């Protein structure tokens, strides 16, 4: 199931549903009043994400939103949505859904076998979609024309897995309404495939590089790190050369940003992603630049990652 061709699965399921389900609407009839997606199997972790809720950090609410923002934006553009519309973020794929009404979807991000990536796909009412496990990368985005229309919480439909704010994580049996807010379709119907390539992330030193021994920054940029399995939307935990501190006193908690490389006492850095805590009590040696955050969001357990000094803006 996990690696089944999407198109084949869809047509097979559609035929099965038409034959076996007496409630199926007749061909050519009016579409159901409420367009929705039914979750048959959520996969390892699927959440609803848009571009998050910026501007609330001062009261302790993080931005959250799609971890790979470029892929979310692309998926939305391909189905003619506003770029900030809510879509599904799949972690390690594995999602199986059924559409209650005709829909136009697009998949971007980590490429899943058999799934039509990077272009709009038309789905008929009653069709099932089974998405496999990506061979590389971690997060796949599924946008639906009209957007996923779950209620907003504090101005966003994003699930923040750290604070629990936002819609619930997808579960079997859940119905996700599809909205009606759309933009114009783009003039292309296929985006060039994105190649992930080796993970080389550019960093700017600071704000607390002076809390580390003088060669800690070169240790960070000269050695290879490996992504550990306890990584999630909060952060990517890394294994590799220890970053030794020179200042050992306690750091009063301070604001942290997405991309921050925070170093707990063990000396192995954590790279903060979309759902990172708003403040942290361990020093941040360097920050991955914004342009490389989408690549960072595609890091999966076991991946090698290296850091390079970025040019000062």
């Amino acid at each position, binding site marked *: 199931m996990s690696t089944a061709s999407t198109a084949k699965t869809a047509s097979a399921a559609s035929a099965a549903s038409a034959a076996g389900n007496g409630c199926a609407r007749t061909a050519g009839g009016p579409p159901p009043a409420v367009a929705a997606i039914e979750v048959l199997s959520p996969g390892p972790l699927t959440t609803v994400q848009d571009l998050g809720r*910026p*501007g*609330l*950090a*001062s*009261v*302790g*609410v993080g931005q959250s939103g799609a971890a790979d923002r470029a892929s979310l934006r692309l998926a939305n553009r391909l189905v003619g949505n506003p770029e900030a519309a809510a879509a599904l973020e799949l972690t390690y794929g594995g999602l199986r859904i059924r559409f209650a009404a005709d829909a136009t979807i697009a998949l971007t991000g980590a490429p899943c076998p058999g799934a039509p990536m990077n272009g709009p796909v038309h789905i008929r009412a009653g069709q099932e979609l089974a998405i496999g496990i990506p061979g590389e990368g971690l997060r796949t985005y599924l946008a639906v024309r009209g957007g996923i229309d779950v209620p907003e*919480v*504090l101005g966003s439909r994003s699930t923040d897995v750290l*604070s629990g*704010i936002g819609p619930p994580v997808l579960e079997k049996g859940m119905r996700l309404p599809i909205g009606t807010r759309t933009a114009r379709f783009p003039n292309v119907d296929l985006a060039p495939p994105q190649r992930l390539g080796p993970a080389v992330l550019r960093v*700017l*030193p*600071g*704000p*607390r590089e002076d809390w580390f021994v003088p060669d800690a920054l070169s240790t960070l940029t000269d050695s290879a790190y490996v992504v550990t399995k306890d990584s999630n939307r909060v952060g990517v935990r890394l294994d590799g050369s220890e970053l030794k501190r020179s200042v050992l006193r306690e750091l*009063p*908690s*301070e*604001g*942290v*940003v997405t*991309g*921050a490389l925070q170093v707990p006492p063990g000396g192995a850095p954590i790279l903060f992603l979309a759902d990172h805590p*708003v*403040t942290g009590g361990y020093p*941040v040696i360097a*920050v*991955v*630049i*914004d*342009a490389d955050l989408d690549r960072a969001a595609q890091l999966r357990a076991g991946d090698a990652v290296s850091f390079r000094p*970025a040019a000062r*803006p």
Partner: protein
Amino acid sequence: MRVKPAGSSAVLVCLDDPDQVTGLYRELQSAPPAGYVDAIPAAETVMVLFDPARTQAAAIAAWLESASSRAAGTHSADADRAAPLVTIPVRYDGPDLAEIASQTGLSIEEVVYRHTANEYVVAFCGFAPGFGYLTGLDPMLCLPRRTVPRTRIPARSVAIADRFASVYPSTSPGGWHLLGSTEAVMWDLRRQPPALLAPGARVRFEVAK
């Protein structure tokens, strides 16, 4: 103050104390610089987020330098009067009231009097959404955190620790001393803004009628 780089779209302002943090945060709120996105005040720092498409770190740093001296020049009482005032009614029946009295050498009545006498300012939020760290606590009430934290503190518990006062917005573990409780809803996701106490706000505690 020192302004330190924090990636391609933020700078970290390092200050000496929570009062400077409040002063700078209020400047950011009243007339933010071009390209300003958000700020995260903390005990001795303010993380200032900006949009690199609209401004640069150097321009933000220059604005922060002048805002910081403006804030230092402003009499804090004047800035205080312009900030919103939140009054929180408290039932002073917390489990640590007697211990606070014995540790400070005050009577329970005097502990309550001193907690209600001062006006506080929300210096920053942290620990949990809507948890504000309030400066202005009477020095006589400054006690280190409890040596053994509680595993469960009920939502809306009114508490003090170190030089701060606060109210727990939701049920959580914690090591602060509990003075009592309030009916005020500190955190509500259906409310805009969700937090009753945002940085810069003034706060008074009063004995609930």
